């Protein structure tokens, strides 16, 4: 509990935070909106709750449109509930770049979870601004974490940059592909191979699932520089005995191509019939245990914190610079200078308003 942050809140906001801390879902919901909309005091709310962040495991679920991400997310959430684990879900859909509106439809596939105690689902629109989504989804995840959820599932469509944002804000990344999306080639182009800790080949009830699984495995083997995928079971046994005997691998061993490296599994499933979901869920648990045992969890969490702080700084700087820009534009003579001076010279002038000691040649 951060007392000074709490002290800077209005009595109404303080009441909201108290209701949050006593576990009222409406308070959680309203704090999320407050933060998402950057209403006055949102920073202090996040600071006040920051001490309670860090207990939940965060899992990103990404993949092409329609791959079955929401269906699988719902099935995973049910698996967790059967084990008495509570689940916070964040489902992100794109905003229209033209109207700014969004149709958030992921809940259709999570329908039976709406009234399930221990589950809280929040839909978010990407709102398209640079890094805006990245900061907002992280902050929503922080709030779900602080509220006490055991698992946080973050669903986003994997097209373009978003999957990188997912990977840098979660502990484990699950990439969902489907046979009909054609080739794994598409997935490779989209950068999904780089971020996956685990692949689910969903809609395995349709033809082509085996082929897709093999394609992914071949690419993974090429990337890891190993001669090929080991026969099923062989490496699994090998690795688990290694892991069991070595709780705390020395630093230098982690640095190179560690032989305790995680081998990305490719698991077929039929999310709509909950087939294969158990294996996906258990493998995610295994991945988390591996993160913990290998010391990579601490590294990953530090990287998450670093990226989040960087995004906040970037946004703050950008906002200040834009304010200075607007005032400069409003000055008499701005139009003339735009004609006679280079963009770099103008930028330097504006920047010196925000940052008097700005280096002159850093762009």
């Amino acid at each position: 509990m951060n007392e000074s942050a709490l002290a800077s809140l209005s009595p109404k906001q303080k009441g909201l935070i108290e209701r949050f801390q006593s576990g009222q879902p409406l308070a959680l919901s309203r704090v999320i909106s407050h933060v998402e909309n950057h209403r006055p005091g949102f920073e202090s709310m996040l600071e006040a709750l920051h001490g309670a962040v860090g207990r939940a495991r965060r899992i990103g679920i990404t993949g092409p449109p329609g791959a079955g991400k929401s269906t699988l997310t719902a099935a995973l959430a049910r698996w967790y509930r059967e084990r008495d684990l509570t689940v916070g879900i964040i489902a992100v859909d794109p905003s229209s770049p033209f109207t700014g509106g969004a149709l958030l439809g992921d809940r259709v596939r999570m329908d039976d979870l709406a009234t399930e105690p221990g589950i809280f689902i929040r839909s978010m629109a990407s709102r398209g601004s640079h890094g805006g989504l990245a900061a907002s989804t992280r902050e929503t995840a922080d709030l779900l974490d602080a509220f006490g959820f055991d698992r946080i599932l973050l669903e986003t469509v994997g097209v373009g940059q978003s999957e990188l944002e997912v990977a840098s804000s979660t502990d484990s990344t699950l990439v969902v592909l489907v046979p009909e999306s054609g080739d794994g080639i598409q997935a490779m182009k989209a950068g999904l191979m780089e971020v996956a800790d685990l692949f689910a080949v969903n809609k395995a009830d349709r033809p082509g699932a085996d082929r897709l699984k093999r394609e992914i495995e071949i690419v993974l083997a090429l990337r890891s520089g190993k001669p090929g995928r080991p026969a099923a079971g062989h490496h699994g046994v090998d690795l688990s005995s290694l892991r069991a005997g070595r709780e705390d691998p020395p630093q230098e061993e982690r640095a190179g191509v560690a032989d305790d490296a995680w081998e990305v599994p490719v698991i077929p499933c039929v999310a709509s019939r909950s087939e294969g979901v158990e294996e996906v869920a258990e493998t995610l648990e295994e991945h988390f245990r591996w993160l913990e045992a290998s010391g990579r969890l601490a590294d990953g969490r530090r990287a998450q914190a670093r990226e989040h702080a960087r995004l906040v700084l970037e946004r703050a700087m950008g906002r200040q610079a834009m304010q200075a820009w607007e005032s400069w534009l409003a000055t008499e003579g701005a139009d003339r200078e735009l004609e006679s001076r280079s963009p770099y010279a103008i930028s330097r002038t504006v920047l010196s308003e925000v940052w008097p000691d700005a280096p002159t040649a850093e762009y």
Partner: protein
Amino acid sequence: MSERKIRVLVAKPGLDGHDRGAKVIAAALRDAGMEVIYTGLHQTPEKIAATALQEDVDVVALSILSGAHMTLFPRVLRLMTENGMDDVLLTGGGIIPSEDIEALQEQGVGQLFGPGTTTGEAVAYISRWFEESGRGVEA
């Protein structure tokens, strides 16, 4: 600070099996710049209230063609009030006789739209309500 988006839950309660009307209104609200949460067919009042709470929507819009509006609207309204969401607008549309509309509005339901109305009217109504509610500027 960016302008605040209006969040709307569009829900289709009842047993009748098509949601064209609900999808049309959802798309119109999105095109008007709102963030629309859509949940599919056969929503129970309990699900609608729980979803409204988790999504912290400003507006809940129900599409009811089954004739069960006199039970569904009051039920959802009561559950929302119990959840502490009495500041949220409950509106909707469907085949609802005007005397029923009056009775429901007396209970606290907002404007209701019959089969003859255009989506534009519903969009304008929700925008105006949001404007007047002051929700866009609250601290």
